[in-house]
Structures are given as structure tokens and as C-alpha cells.
């Protein structure tokens, strides 16, 4: 099938620390999981490559500390990556490793091409701004200056994520965790990004709220055909949302495939542990 990925990630790498000759080798005895006992460097993301296709939901699973958030934040330019390439197939961007673009160009991508929902709402929202103000902020960053249309769009988005309109002026700090996540989703969607990153959107929410957030994501995907990377350590979430998934361990991809295949016929020893521990 000759299909062009909307995002191509190649050999992405992120280390906290300078590294040393001992930890260059992935099999080094000095490495305890992702941590080098010789120099103290954390190898949070190691040689990660994958493709994201238009309109698909790609799941990323892995235990705590496996590098999922670091990788997502790297794609979103929240932190500089140590090495690697990222290509986005969008007008004006094709063929450029976006990691090497100027900060102004990166800001353009963040504001117009990407949407991000952080694991911790504190990172995605100004907790003491009104909810609608949080949404408007992103639209202003993308160049929108028309107050009336932003307000209308903001209200429409809040309605879509089931936040009662009478609460639009309220600050997210007064909201429950589930509502904060839904405001984050509304904000991330505000300028119709073709690519959306979701980091543990349902973690810590109670079950019925989880279900409504999952419904919402599924609906967004069906109706807007947005390409999404969904990070979760909850296999049930991944099963529900993603057709294809990637399993990460110690900063590396150890397995990828169709989500049902990963769950029913896991190949890697670690994936088997992860899956069987649920049965």
C-alpha cells in the first residue's frame, strides 16, 4: 500500500547527561535499565523510529520510566532531543527534519500542526485563567485576532468535550481531573491540528470519567480524521483506541504490531509479562 506517513520518526534519542564510553553500548553491564551506573546518564529514549499514518491512532505502551513522555515531549519540541530526525508531511514542511528548524518555525508547528494533551494538566493549562481563555490563548498564538469568532469556537469546543457553557469562565483549578483533561483536549483541538499527542489522558480518572474521555477521543478520530499518538500504560485504553501499537522498555521500542496481535500473541518476553499479568 503506497501510503505516505504524516509523521516519520527516525533514530530519536534523548539522554539526560553526557554519557560515557561504558553506556554507548546498549548491552553494557553498567546500564541498569536506562541508567548508567558509571556516569549517571539517563538514556530516556534510545534509537526510536516509527511512522504515524494519516487518520490513525498509534498506541504507545510501556512501564513507568520507559521514556514515553520524554519521547512525546521531544516531538512537541518541549525539550531538545539528543539526536534523531522527525519529518512531517504537511505543506511547507515535507523533507525537513523539523528538529533542526528555528524556534520560530517550531512554534509555528506547535501552534498550527500539533495539539498536545499532557499527562499532567498543569503543563497544558494555565490553571488561573478561565477555561475559554486557555483555549483562546492557543488560537491567538496561531494568529487569530478576532475575539468574536474565537469565543464562538471556544464555546463550541467546550460543548463538544461536555463542559457546561455556564462554566466556561471558570478557572480549571476549580475543575475535577476529568474536566481539566477535557479542557486540555478542547484547547489542543482549537486550531484543527492534523496531529494530536495524548499522554496518559485517562490516568487517575475514575472509570466512568475515563469512559467518557475515551468516547470523546474515538469520536474526534472518527469525525475529524486527526492522526493521534496515544501514550498509556493501560493496555485497556490502547486496546480501545489504537489499531497499531508500540511497546517501549528502557527507552527502546521492543515490539510493534497490530494492537490485538500484541495483546493476544505478544512476541517479546517483556510484552508477554505485561500482557499475562493482566489475565
Amino acid at each position, binding site marked *: 500500500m503506497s501510503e505516505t506517513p504524516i509523521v516519520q520518526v527516525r533514530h530519536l534519542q534523548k539522554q539526560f547527561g553526557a554519557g560515557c564510553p561504558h553506556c554507548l553500548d546498549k548491552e553494557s553491564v553498567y546500564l541498569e535499565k536506562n541508567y548508567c551506573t558509571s556516569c549517571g546518564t539517563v538514556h530516556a529514549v534510545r534509537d526510536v523510529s516509527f511512522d504515524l499514518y494519516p487518520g490513525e491512532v498509534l498506541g504507545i505502551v510501556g512501564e513507568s520510566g520507559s521514556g514515553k513522555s520524554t519521547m512525546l515531549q521531544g516531538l512537541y519540541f518541549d525539550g531538545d532531543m539528543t539526536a534523531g530526525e522527525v519529518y512531517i508531511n504537511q505543506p511547507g514542511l515535507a523533507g525537513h527534519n523539523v528538529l533542526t528548524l528555528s524556534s520560530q518555525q517550531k512554534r509555528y508547528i506547535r501552534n498550527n500542526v500539533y495539539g498536545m494533551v499532557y499527562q499532567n494538566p498543569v503543563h497544558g493549562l494555565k490553571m488561573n485563567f478561565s477555561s475559554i481563555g486557555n483555549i483562546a490563548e492557543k488560537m491567538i498564538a496561531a494568529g487569530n485576532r478576532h475575539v468574536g469568532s474565537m469565543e464562538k469556537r471556544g464555546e463550541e469546543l467546550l460543548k463538544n468535550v461536555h463542559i457546561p457553557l455556564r462554566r466556561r469562565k471558570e478557572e480549571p483549578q476549580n475543575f475535577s481531573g476529568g474536566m481539566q483533561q477535557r479542557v486540555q483536549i478542547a484547547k489542543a483541538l482549537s486550531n484543527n491540528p492534523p496531529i494530536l499527542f495524548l499522554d496518559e489522558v485517562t490516568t487517575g480518572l475514575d472509570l466512568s470519567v475515563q469512559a467518557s474521555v475515551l*468516547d470523546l477521543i*474515538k469520536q474526534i478520530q472518527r469525525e475529524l480524521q486527526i492522526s493521534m499518538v496515544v501514550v498509556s500504560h493501560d493496555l485497556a485504553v490502547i486496546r480501545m483506541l489504537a*489499531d497499531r501499537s508500540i511497546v517501549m522498555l528502557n527507552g527502546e521500542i521492543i515490539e510493534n504490531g497490530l494492537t490485538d*496481535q500484541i495483546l493476544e500473541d505478544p512476541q517479546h*518476553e517483556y510484552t*508477554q509479562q505485561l500482557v499475562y499479568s493482566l489475565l
Partner: protein
Amino acid sequence: MSILEVNGLGKAFTIHHLNKTIPAVDEIQFSINAGEFLGIMGKSGSGKSTILKSIYRTYLPDAGQIMYDSNQFGNIDLIQASEREIIFLRKNEIGYVSQFLNVMPRTTCRELVQNALLEMGETRETARIEAEKALTHFEMDSSLWNSYPNTFSGGEKLRLNIAMATVKKPRLLLLDEPTASLDQQSKWKVREIIEKLKEQGTTLVGIFHDIEFMEGLCDKVFDMKTNEMSVSLEGVTHEG
């Protein structure tokens, strides 16, 4: 003209922490023509589900070929096909039904069937109309259309399952003991449904426990015990 040809299919499961390999199937060989119903017979644990799940690629086979004649891709080996190709085929050409209903929670019966159509790129209006047709066709009481299926009876769940799979008009439908938990009456209803699908030209590969049920329904039988295909149920026993 065969639509599906399985050649030398082999699959074993390696369980790392037990340091163990479980052989499931070996050297499986059969083929089906478009519009036929192939029944797979064999005792529990003989590898029937493994064959169906290998065709659907829920399992990754270790050996052989599964040649499928696709509308979209022409002749394609389902073992070698890319994940994106398999996803396309699952959305548009190949369906799978088991006795388990595995769906998004808090989604109504009607929405589930509609979503299956929206996934294929149908418009909202077409999806609504086709979903209602399918639910009516499979005799789902309209009072259930707006309810969540977690409260449904086994038979209702199964009919919904079949409606979701068949509303897409799959060319190839895999049935893994869908009737396993049903009473006699519901079973015969499923048989009627299968007959309807056959009339529509759907190719079917099915596993059913009881021979009586398969009689007159399947065109060919693959016997796990002898690893051979025959054209009648005679001589095939379940106890093996």
C-alpha cells in the same frame, strides 16, 4: 477461482518465562472458492482458532502462506502483508466474529453498527440508514437500538456482533464458534443468518461445535485430525 488458499501454515507459541514452546498448528493446507462455506472440525486444542486468528493476523504465523484474493490489493499473502494493509482489509473486506462482544463501553447498539460504517468512510446519513437496515435484518428489537449492549442476552450480543461484522459486507467472514453459548433456538436463528450471508455471496470459514448445525450449511470440511479437506461431513467425528 479460490479466494483463500492456505499453504503449509505453521504456528507455535513461545512462552519466554516458562522457557516453553507450544505447538498449535503445522502444515495446514486448504483452499476455498468465492461464496463457499468451509467448516473446520477438530477437538478442543487442535488449533482451529489458531487458524482463523492467523488469517485475521491476530496471531503471527511462523510458517507458510495465506494467499487472499483482495479487491483492493489483488493476490496478497496475509502473513507478509503490512499492518496498514491488514487494517484496511479488516475495515473493508475481512470480518471476524466470535462469541465475545468486544466493543467500546457506553456506546449504544445503534452507534456501534453505525461506527463500523463510518470507519469505512460512509457518510453519516448512509451509516444511519444501513445500520437500521442491518439491525432489522438480524431481528434486533428496535427497543434495544439505543441501549448499551452490556445488558444484552447472549443471543442479542451475538446478533449485534454479526450485524457489526456483516454491515460492512465483508467478502470473507471468519466465524469462531459464535454460537458456543447460545440455546438451541438462538442457534438456529444464527443458521438462518449464515444462510442469508451465503445467498449474498459471502465466503465463510467457520468453526462450530456441533456437526448437526454444520450439516447442509458447509460446502467443504477441513478435519484437524487428518489435516485434510473433504466435501462432506461423513466420517468426521468431533471426538477425534
